[in-house]
């Protein structure tokens, strides 16, 4: 039982971090970023290249992943999404753009890094074994780092000037603009920040699960699940959703093991029932 909870917490921490980036972008622009999983993969491969191949220290590699993804995200917002939002009659058009960029990233990743599963040397060796819990130290390190980053992100959104501006934007775009917030600039920063989070998680997790070019899509779907559980566009919701999904996966894999590979079937079914009762997730705002 302790093992299940520990696994759930570990999964939850990394999931929550993935969901945060997605929900930030959604909250600011109403864009469902299909390419989120691909950004994660890209971050993973950048860390793989810098840490695994060039041999530079792991933190440098993760920071490099974050920075490059932030730049990519900023450019995407500035030159792709902003243009399409301005020219299109319907908001949903950004979904096609997002899907197209997801394909584009898939193609680029496949061309540059190939289709092989890539891993890097462990960052910390050894296994923690106490209190009935067995967990490799590197997983603990990653989970703690993820938790710290979540905390940092919350504090940033709550107290920094940029964070406040972005929260105002998410709440009411027009009102924020009237209060003198530079809407374009903060939207771009928000998108870059969301992309950066995806890149950093990818970089962190490459040291544990490795990375391959095909996992972008499934990661995106999981991230969608999390923000649906918690409520789209809400920071707290994304964190809650991440931890809930992590727990459900961990518990499901243990409890439902004898029935075969049905964990996700059960999770999906439960989610559909849940959303039928609470259409906006745990803490989402009503969406029109």
């Amino acid at each position, binding site marked *: 039982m302790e093992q299940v909870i520990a696994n759930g917490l570990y999964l939850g921490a990394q999931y929550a971090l993935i969901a945060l980036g997605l929900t930030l972008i959604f909250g600011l622009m109403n864009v469902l970023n299909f390419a989120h999983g691909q950004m994660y993969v890209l971050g993973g491969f950048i860390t793989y290249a810098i840490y695994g191949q060039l041999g530079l220290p792991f933190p440098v590699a993760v920071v490099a992943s974050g920075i490059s993804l932030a730049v990519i995200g900023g450019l995407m917002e500035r030159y792709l999404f902003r243009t399409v939002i301005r020219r*299109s009659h319907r908001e949903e058009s950004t979904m096609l753009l997002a899907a197209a*960029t997801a394909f584009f990233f898939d193609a680029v990743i496949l*061309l540059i890094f190939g289709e092989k599963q890539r891993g890097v040397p462990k960052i910390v060796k050894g296994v923690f074994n106490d209190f009935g819990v067995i967990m490799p130290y590197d997983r603990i390190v990653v989970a703690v780092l993820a938790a710290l980053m979540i905390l940092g992100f919350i504090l940033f959104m709550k107290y920094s000037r940029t964070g406040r501006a972005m929260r105002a934007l998410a709440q009411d775009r027009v009102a924020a603009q009237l209060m003198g917030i530079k809407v374009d600039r903060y939207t771009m920063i928000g998108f870059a920040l969301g992309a950066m989070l995806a890149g950093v998680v990818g970089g962190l997790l490459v040291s544990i699960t490795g990375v391959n070019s095909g996992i972008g899509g499934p990661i995106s779907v999981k991230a969608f699940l999390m923000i649906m559980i918690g409520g*789209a566009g809400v920071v707290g919701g994304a964190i809650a959703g991440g931890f809930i999904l992590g727990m459900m996966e961990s518990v499901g894999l243990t409890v439902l093991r004898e029935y075969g590979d*049905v964990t996700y079937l059960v999770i999906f079914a439960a*989610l559909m029932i849940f*959303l039928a009762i609470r259409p906006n997730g745990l803490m989402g705002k009503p969406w029109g």
Partner: protein
Amino acid sequence: MNRTLRLLGVAAFLVAVFVVVPLLISVTGRKDVYYTLTSVALLSIASAGVWLTFYIGRINMGQGAFALMGAYVTAVLVNHYGVAFWWTLPAAGLFCAVASLLIGLPILRLRGVYFAMVSLVLTEVTRLLALALPVTEGAKGITNIPLPGAISLFGLTIVPDFATLENPRIAFYYLAATLMVLCFAGMYRLVHSRIGHICMSLQQNEELASSIGVNIVHLRLIAFAISSFLGGISGATFAAVTQSVYPSSFTVTDSVNFMLNCFLGGLGYVFGPMLGTLTLYFGWNLLFQTGEFQLLIYSSLMIILMLVLPNGLLSLGEGRRKG
């Protein structure tokens, strides 16, 4: 004048689909194009369904689920119960329509991305169910589905037995094209009817529509059921064409592609899904020659297209008319 023009356009389209294309193919001898065109026709039927849900303001990424259901209904009925394909085709459509009513009742309350994501999840649920249920035979799927038999009325053979034909692909092409024409004629009629106009009001503001006495629950269920019916028909015919169905026959990627077809053609135009499907499917196949760069070029073109024509290919004609 306008009316005659439109009639001429329809006639030209019908002639092109049923006469010119087969002629061209027999002249050039590229019989493989039949299969491609059959796929385009069937996929555009499913996309038309997605388009209808867009029309009531829902982003539908669940069409893959209904296509898969339809395919399995046909496969199971034909292979396990020996029902004729022609009966299973409407059965598949109706099964999907009923299923969509049951599923739609709760989830159609959702809007925006929530509906989009739930429908995406629905696609995944259906795939996992197909893997888990005994009747669908798991990952190995149902194969060796017999070709459709003959239809005869009063001893007169209307449709020959596909198995006796020299090239069943041509027959499937005619079948798919007929279905597509029927589907789009129906859609055109629906959109330009009273219900179509009310659907438009759902797209813009459901509360307002509801406040002036439109039964929105009723209407969006109908639209979703029609959409799923089309998905089921398309999937069932696909199963007959490929003579097999697997849990991976229709996946999340297909659901997303149906949606992209609608976007590309233009959400404001009934025939958008058809044009979008044709463009995307042919574009993808043409780029096959570029090998490893296929996906890169394809996605870059899509991004560029989106930047230049964010309202779909058909908005090109509109701009000219205005200007």
